[in-house]
């Protein structure tokens, strides 16, 4: 789900021109019409079939068109019933029973019931289904991720659906809340076939009207929305590929919420008293991967030394304009089960040096640090982070060579067992479940795809399995806190930071709340004052 930031405008530098000049005029030549909420986006979406596409911009829009069976409690990644009115999980953790909300309709008039819901799932999983999603074009989404553990899906009665899993999978509920599991109208999917991606029909607070590529996406309020009629009549996602033009649009009143607020323009946004900067801990982590099976990184003291050697606070301030928090745990602070009592690794070059010498590492150790060549969602500064780390490691006598390559080549290299250097590493959460960070990044079954540092700890693996099998929230919290402590001590990464989610919002906007997944959920509650 991480959006590659290669699309950052070539004109970023020009942003400084706008931010530096505080022109006072605020005549809204073409301010958005009353009752129309305008959200500024930087890139073009690629379509609106939740299970087929996989980029943030498409997700932003789909979150207003579709609902999922579960949803996130506003502002969090804790799951709660969405299109399901209630649910129950069998004691063995294998059977999930959902009762659907009555009186929910799709935008095309189709009624939501167990039959239509199951028809939507069937479209994803049954090759014989005439609307089978893999026959409509490339599928990038989360079908395997969500439904890979499914043994069966059935309509028990008119309003009850039952999922049976092959093995317990506690994050299943959270996964169902993802925007990528939005419930589509099976009638519309059958009617539009390959073109459904351009004609999305859901049950959400806004009804899709038109997509003008590289310009805008127009939506109308859904007056019959089950969770309350939206407070604005229309919603527009308007594209501003140039960040400086985006800022002007926000200042002029053409735009109300800037989905892709550019960090380079923060001084100008902060200086404008009619704009508000909303921030929230992000669902992302970023650091430097240390290949745990390769000397000298096989020695935990070396890995810890590298952690003590880097001043994360200074990096956050200088490189990230304060919009990142140092990692004190392998989990970001936005995750439930994050352990705030963990100390992380404070900057201590002396301790780093003594750990290195205890491990028998002589000054002058040469290591490569491989970097992707552009910014990413979890690391907007891209390879600059590698250069900063290089400087800090130099101070403890480690000579680092930074090599910068294209992202695809980078991914292939770090996943190859042959690669023995360090590398930039990062992750953006998919569903908001801690398993999706800790197990994905540090569970040995995920070597080398997402556990790219080849970290292998049987004790940690055992915790992950237990946590997946438990449906008791408190038990899971305790297990993940245990895992965090062990992984932090084992230091398979230089744990650098977790970027904040940042959005600039005009003062006219009321009732808008960020969600760690960055998606525009609960938009029916947003009004223009």
């Amino acid at each position: 789900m991480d959006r590659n930031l290669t699309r950052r405008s070539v004109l970023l530098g020009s942003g400084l021109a706008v931010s530096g000049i505080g022109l006072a005029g605020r005549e809204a030549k073409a301010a958005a019409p009353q009752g129309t909420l305008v959200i500024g986006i930087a890139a073009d979406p690629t379509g609106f079939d939740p299970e087929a596409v996989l980029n943030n911009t498409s997700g932003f829009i789909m979150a207003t068109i579709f609902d999922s069976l579960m949803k996130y409690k506003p502002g969090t990644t804790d799951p709660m019933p969405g299109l399901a009115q209630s649910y129950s999980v069998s004691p063995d953790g294998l059977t999930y029973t959902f009762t659907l909300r009555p009186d929910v309709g799709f935008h095309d008039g189709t009624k939501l019931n167990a039959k239509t819901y199951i028809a939507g799932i069937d479209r994803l999983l049954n090759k014989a289904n005439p609307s089978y999603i893999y026959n409509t074009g490339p599928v990038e989404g989360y079908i395997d991720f969500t439904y890979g553990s499914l043994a069966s899906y059935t309509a028990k009665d008119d309003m009850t659906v039952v999922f049976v899993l092959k093995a317990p999978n506690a994050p299943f509920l959270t996964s169902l809340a993802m925007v990528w599991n939005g419930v589509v109208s099976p009638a519309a999917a059958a009617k539009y076939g390959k073109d459904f991606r351009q004609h999305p029909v859901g049950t959400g607070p806004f009804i899709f009207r038109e997509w003008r590529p590289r310009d805008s996406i127009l939506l109308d309020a859904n007056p019959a929305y089950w969770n309350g009629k939206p407070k604005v009549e229309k919603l527009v996602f308007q594209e501003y590929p140039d960040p400086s033009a985006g800022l002007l649009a926000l200042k002029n009143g053409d735009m109300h919420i800037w989905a892709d607020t550019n960090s380079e323009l923060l001084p100008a946004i902060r200086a404008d008293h009619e704009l508000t900067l909303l921030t929230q801990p992000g669902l992302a982590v970023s650091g430097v991967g240390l290949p745990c099976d390769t000397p000298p990184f096989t020695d935990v003291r070396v890995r810890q030394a590298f952690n003590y050697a880097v001043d994360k606070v200074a990096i956050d301030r200088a490189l990230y304009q304060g919009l990142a928090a140092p990692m004190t745990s392998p989990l970001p602070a936005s995750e439930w089960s994050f352990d705030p009592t963990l100390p992380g690794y404070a900057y201590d070059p002396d301790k780093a040096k003594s750990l290195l010498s205890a491990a028998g590492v002589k000054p002058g150790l040469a290591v490569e640090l491989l970097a992707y060549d552009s910014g990413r969602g979890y690391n907007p500064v891209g390879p600059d982070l590698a250069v900063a780390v290089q400087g800090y490691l130099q101070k403890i006598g480690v000579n680092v060579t930074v090599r910068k390559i294209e992202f695809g080549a980078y991914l292939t290299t770090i996943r190859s067992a042959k690669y023995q250097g360090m590398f930039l590493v990062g992750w953006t959460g998919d569903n908001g479940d801690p398993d999706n960070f800790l197990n994905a990044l540090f569970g040995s079954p995920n070597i080398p795809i997402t556990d790219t540092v080849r970290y292998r700890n049987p004790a940690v693996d055992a915790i992950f399995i237990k946590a997946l099998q438990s449906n008791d929230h408190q038990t899971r919290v305790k297990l993940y806190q245990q895992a965090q402590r062990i992984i932090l001590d084992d230091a398979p990464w230089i744990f650098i930071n977790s970027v904040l989610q940042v959005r600039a919002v005009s003062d006219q906007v009321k009732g808008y709340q960020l969600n760690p997944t960055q998606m525009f959920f609960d938009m029916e509650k947003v009004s223009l004052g």
Partner: protein
Amino acid sequence: MGDYLAGRVGQLLIVLFGVSVVVFVAMHLLPGDVATLLLGDRATAASLVRLRHQLGLDQPVIVQYWRFLRGALAGDFGTSLRDNRPALGEVLAAFPVTLQLTLAALLIAVAIGVPLGMLAALSEGTWVDTAITTPTLFGVSMPVFWLGLMALLLFSEKLGWLPVGGVMPIGTTMPRITGLSVVDAVLSGRPALVGEALSYLVLPAATLATIPLALITRITRGEMLASMHLEHVRTARAKGLPEGRVIRAHVLRNALIPIVTVIGLQLGLLLSGAVLTETIFSLPGLGRLMVDAILARDYPVVQAGALFVAVVFVGVNFAVDLGYAALDPRIRRR
């Protein structure tokens, strides 16, 4: 004329084939593939294999090229790897935006540049000449992105006269007939929309016009001066023709051929996409489409766009040649 046209069409086919090969090879030489870019960090080996298969990327390059060629000859350029829409459709939808922007910019550049250049030539060495030629030096060397932003700051932010960007006011519904917003506004029969469409066009067009304007002014001046010292002009003056007629019939007409060449070249260049202007002013034109497609390794769109641009280039060159013939009887007779 028939032979000439046939020659031109043959030339076009060769150009198109060359472009298609170069683009195809170049896109395959670029590091990174679309599947990795689409799936990102969590791409598993299996998901990459499946997506590559769905996109047809698991075929040998030569087979992919053959498939493309076979489709292209039938008018089917495939679907975008990024958003699954017909590639040529995307190009054709984006082109009118660029066409309108380009024509407006060239109109400004020619309407102002040619008279200014003439004036400078006629006032050679005077303060008028200096007052015209000095700013044109800035004009040709002005970075468009900076100029565009300054124009936005002044006219949108400070004065509030003109909108920040886009094609029409946010959320406007207007039937898309030609894709040229001004023409569609006229055809829609809603006069207010015409004004709106123009107000969204003027800043980007003026920004895009700066370089061609400066260039056309300088070329006009230079060519006029060169022609003014030709022998036949001296003869024309010697036989007592009024100065106005000398300038119009003997100086300007001679000078126009290089000017038309420059205009044609600029037209071709601008039509292939004014990326920076389209980006600053949030215009959904061909330049942005192509840059997005290249960054996403979406080569059906890159391929369709490149071939389309090649056709446009050849077409513009052809028009310029016809222009020469109209201007110069010697070329017509050849």
